[in-house]
């Protein structure tokens, strides 16, 4: 009984700590510019200033940044779905020389910090004249990502091989088996990596920061970071745009919550 009480008290206390910054963001976004400079701070605005959202959004080319973010997110997701699933199928369904070694390499590359490759990648894309275009953010996604390959492979291993065999007897080749049998069955895994990829790409800051210079190419995260640096920006507008940019990942999270929460845990134990 006492144990339950301790559990609830600490969980509620920590929930408050975790939610307070979110609440503060929303409450600030709805205040008037004068209202944010009061002490003690006001928890609830007197009047809800919904116009803050449109005003802040229109004060910068956020619509353009939105377009860029959407293109990068959509194209990388298509790229990852095709490439990671093909590679995962290769690792899951064939025995070939060097397979286990190569798969170890896939797993090992998950541990390499991005900071190590970021400088030479910049040089490489600079050499290709890709700097200040969206290509450095999009093209690599068509060559698979270790984490997604790993997730899909694990999923394919749970699909019974009898189905492949039946199709093979009917004369289907490896690619047809992949396209007609395995892809429809691995939809849950494909949805999961799409969700992960959409969130990661949408939220990415360092990639756009390094590869993009011109404002016309900016993604939303980069646009928001730049917005903060402007001298006449009030906290109200900043929080309003922060909310708008955070909404898509938050909504997606609520839609796909079961998938994500289960796998956030599953990844840890391996």
């Amino acid at each position, binding site marked *: 009984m006492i144990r339950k009480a301790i*559990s609830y008290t*600490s969980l509620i206390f920590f929930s408050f700590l975790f939610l307070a910054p979110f609440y503060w963001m929303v409450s600030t976004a709805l205040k008037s510019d004068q209202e944010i400079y009061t002490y003690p701070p006001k928890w609830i605005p007197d009047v809800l200033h919904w116009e803050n959202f449109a005003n802040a959004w229109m004060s910068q080319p956020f619509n353009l940044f939105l377009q860029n973010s959407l293109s990068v997110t959509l194209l990388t997701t298509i790229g990852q779905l095709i490439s990671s699933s093909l590679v995962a199928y290769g690792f899951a369904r064939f025995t070939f020389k060097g397979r286990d070694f190569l798969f170890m390499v896939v797993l090992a590359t998950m541990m390499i910090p991005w900071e190590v490759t970021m400088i030479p990648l910049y040089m490489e894309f600079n050499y290709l004249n890709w700097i200040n275009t969206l290509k450095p953010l999009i093209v690599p996604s068509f060559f698979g990502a270790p984490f997604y390959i790993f997730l899909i492979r694990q999923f394919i291993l749970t699909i019974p091989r009898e189905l492949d065999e039946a199709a093979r007897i009917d004369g289907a080749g490896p690619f047809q088996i992949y396209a007609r049998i395995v892809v429809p069955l691995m939809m849950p895994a494909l949805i999961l990596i799409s969700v992960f990829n959409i969130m990661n790409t949408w939220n990415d800051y360092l990639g756009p920061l390094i590869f993009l210079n011109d404002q016309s190419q900016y993604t939303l995260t980069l646009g928001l970071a730049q917005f903060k640096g402007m001298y006449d920006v009030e906290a109200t507008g900043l929080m309003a745009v922060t909310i708008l940019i*955070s909404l898509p990942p938050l909504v997606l999270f609520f839609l796909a919550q079961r998938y994500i929460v289960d796998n956030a845990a599953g990844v840890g134990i391996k």
Partner: protein
Amino acid sequence: MKTETIVTREQPAMTVQPKKMNWGALLTPYLFILPWIIGFLAFTLGPMLFSLVMSFFDWPVVGEVTFVGLDNYVNMFTDDPLFWQSLWVTIKFALLFVPLNLIIALFLAIMLNQKVRASGFFRTVFYLPSVISGVALAMIWAWVYDGEYGIFNYLLSLIGITGPDWLNDTSWALVAMVIASLWGQGSMVLIFLAGLKGIPESLYEAASIDGAGTVHKFFRITLPMISPTLLFNLIMTIISAFQQLSLALLLTGGGPLQSTYFYAMYAYDNAFKYFKMGYASANSWFMFLIILVLTFIVFKTSGGWVYYEGDNRKGGEEA
């Protein structure tokens, strides 16, 4: 472990037709993994080797490239106070962040594991901050920490504490970053929770019959049983501490007085502010080496404190 058993089971199915060499069938698997092979060479291995080469050169983005041997590495250690400063900042951050993160996440996971109602709600709450972008996180905390109108100091004032001007105070800015980072690491709670759920109830029941108390059960059952999860989280947390870059760039810009000048930011500045690509590559490789060594140490020492179920090498006398 699970993967290994499945790997061996699938072998008979794919035996290529005997006698006749079937090149098509032999090449098929490589065709499927070809995208990854190309991507690995072009975007991972290639760049890594290239940056290793660059680290032995004086390599500006535009202009003459000159071979300097080990000079970049030597200068780093002997002639660059910023190198030591940033390394020290990173180590201080890791020393604060890693234990706090593990303790809080484990504590919350244990609380969630007490068969509480609405555990789904609490899990969502703890995970929520990791869903939004690091930029959004920085925007929120910059405002929460505001010296004059921030909610953080207001809440502290309610319990009688006069908070500092967090992000502009050399002794508190790093602590502020630790707190903001902890907020974004709620996914650790879920990983620990999954580890806890894997512990058989019977172990606790047996211990209760033997008269073991809560504390005893925690140190003798819970901690040993989740030690593999703990190891995984420890490594991942250390690595993420060394990669701290966005938050430093966005929240403090490394200041005040370089008190939050993280190692990753130091390498970033050398590359993209001062365009010393060779020197910055040496910085990156040094960081990579540190991460490798730390990971290796964590793995090696884990033999003493990580318990794998079904592992007969240790604890065998009890089985």
